């Protein structure tokens, strides 16, 4: 098996490009999301992204705020109790970002259909409402019949809808822990990371922790993302910050509100990026920026016990660095 550890810079350089179809797994508005990866994409100046996700998150909020998102297909674009996604909404209202709405269930099924390589997925939702009739890709047609066209059930002759399936170029998937080969365990809801990992052409894992493969052999039923489909593993503790990662840390309430507030204007977004995105390169710098006190606070999570069974297999930073260096040769 191949050691797939890779720096976040190299992963973004290798697996992202302008105009790509990008999935930010898990794409949870409050929970696990590969946010650090998105920040690195901002740093490397990616643009014209075609983003597909069931939910928005601070990653998409940021990418849209800096003008990198040309088009997005989404089920829910907000930040739940943290409010509307100010950066994304600014981009949508200004016409900078085209938005194609679906339901969350529809997005999950479209990933399933992509993983199956199906021509279409039967649609029993997003039909007979404006999710069917309104298409950002065909704004002059109302009601639009091309976004979710009709399909006839050959058994009954009844009409249903048909969803387009999703086959992203790359998914950057946040996981709780991975081994160096790309086997991964997620704690908390999967959302559609399982299906996404199979639907995507390339898969980059962004892992809060790296564990020995023995951990996978003890808990094979927990390993829902498999090395067989993974291209790169980025080790990045607190990768979902300011969002949460069950078992490891809670969302950073102050920063969630603050970040969203800063996305409201172009000027504030720039200021935010200067301070929080472009100011770090190493993981040490990233951690210093968040600050020791904050790290301690969010790490006091009520879900910490969920990590207990796996702690003995955690690799140390020094060991991971060594493995990363060995790979470079």
């Amino acid at each position, binding site marked *: 098996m191949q050691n797939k550890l890779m720096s976040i810079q190299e992963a973004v350089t290798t697996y992202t490009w302008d105009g790509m179809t990008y999935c930010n797994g898990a794409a949870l*508005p*409050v*929970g*696990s999301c590969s946010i650090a990866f998105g920040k690195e994409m901002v740093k490397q100046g990616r643009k014209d992204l075609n983003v597909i996700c*069931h939910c928005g998150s601070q990653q998409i909020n940021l990418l849209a705020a800096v003008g990198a998102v040309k088009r997005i297909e*989404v*089920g*829910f*674009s*907000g*930040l*739940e*109790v*943290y409010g*509307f996604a100010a950066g*994304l*909404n600014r981009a*949508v*209202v*200004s016409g900078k970002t085209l*938005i194609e*709405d*679906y*339901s*969350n*269930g*529809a997005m*999950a*099924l479209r990933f399933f259909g992509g993983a199956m390589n199906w021509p279409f997925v039967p649609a*029993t*939702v997003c*039909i*007979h*409402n*404006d*999710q069917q*009739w*309104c*298409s*950002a890709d065909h*704004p*002059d*047609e*109302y009601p*639009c019949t091309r976004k979710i066209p009709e399909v006839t059930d050959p058994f009954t002759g009844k*009409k*249903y809808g048909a969803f387009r399936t999703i086959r992203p170029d790359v998914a950057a998937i946040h996981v709780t822990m991975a081994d160096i080969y790309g086997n991964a365990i997620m704690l*908390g*809801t*999967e*959302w*559609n*990371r399982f*299906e996404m990992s199979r639907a995507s052409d390339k898969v980059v894992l962004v892992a809060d922790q790296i564990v020995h493969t023995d951990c996978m052999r003890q808990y094979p039923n927990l390993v829902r993302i498999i090395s067989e489909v993974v291209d790169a593993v980025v080790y990045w503790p607190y990768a979902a910050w300011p969002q*949460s990662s069950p078992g490891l840390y809670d*969302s950073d309430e102050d920063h*969630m509100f603050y970040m969203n507030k800063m996305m409201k204007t172009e000027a504030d977004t720039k200021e935010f990026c200067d301070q929080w995105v472009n100011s770090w390169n190493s993981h040490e710098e990233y951690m210093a920026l968040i600050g020791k006190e904050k790290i301690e606070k969010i790490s006091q*999570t*009520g*879900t910490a016990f969920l990590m207990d069974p796996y702690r003995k297999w955690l690799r140390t930073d020094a060991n991971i660095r060594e493995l990363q260096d060995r790979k470079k040769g």
Partner: protein
Amino acid sequence: MEYTKQEFMAVTTGREIKDSELIIFGVGLPMLAGYFAKLNHAPNLRAFTEGGIYGSTPVGGLPWGIECNRISTNATSFTNAIDALGFLVLSGRADNAVIGAAQVDKYGNVNTTGIWDEPPWKAGKYLAPRVRLNGSGGASDISVGCKHYLIMASHEKRRFMEKVDYISSAGYLDGGDRRERCGFVGGGPSAIISTLGILRPDPQTKEFYLDAYFPFTTIDKVKENTGWNLKVSQDVKIVPEPTAEELKNLRTVDTTGFLRKNG
């Protein structure tokens, strides 16, 4: 005992939830109303969230989101969106749900997607909205799949409309048997719990009428704040005030006082 209007609304919504129902909650007010019901009178409620979090009750305050750690600390199962929204909701298996609405119309259609100066159905085209909201999330799935569901909304004229700008979650569409003809497996919204009262659909026309109002308002005020010519039930009721027991249970769920802060 003193309480806020939001607390009254949550209790009123909770009362619509029956024991043992298989029920899905969105985040915020709906979740508080739901877990209040579980604590208060529905101990066997089988509640879950969109991401497939089962068997849990919130710990440490209102969850920030449906996948917040506050709802993940005591779960018996974490699965995924296809399970929760597909197998349990779109399939028609779930009994009930509580969703929110930025706009709702006389047939219970909900808009949570955007506000337009000229909405798509009027303009005949789909342009960028004046205000972007959140999109439907799982509410659209709930609207077609759940056996029935509850809508919570702030009762204001600009929100209670003859016709919403955009149907994110289908209610009864144009009313009558229109929804039935669409073949949705779920039965549609059973009530709108607003900040002023309870609206229910007419069994034939499916137009929502006023079934009960809160003691702090009047029928006229409710009608004034409604964007269509609101019909009133012949035996319109006044919603009973929260009991001390109900308030105690609600506040046990609403640890951080979300509903008290927001009036």
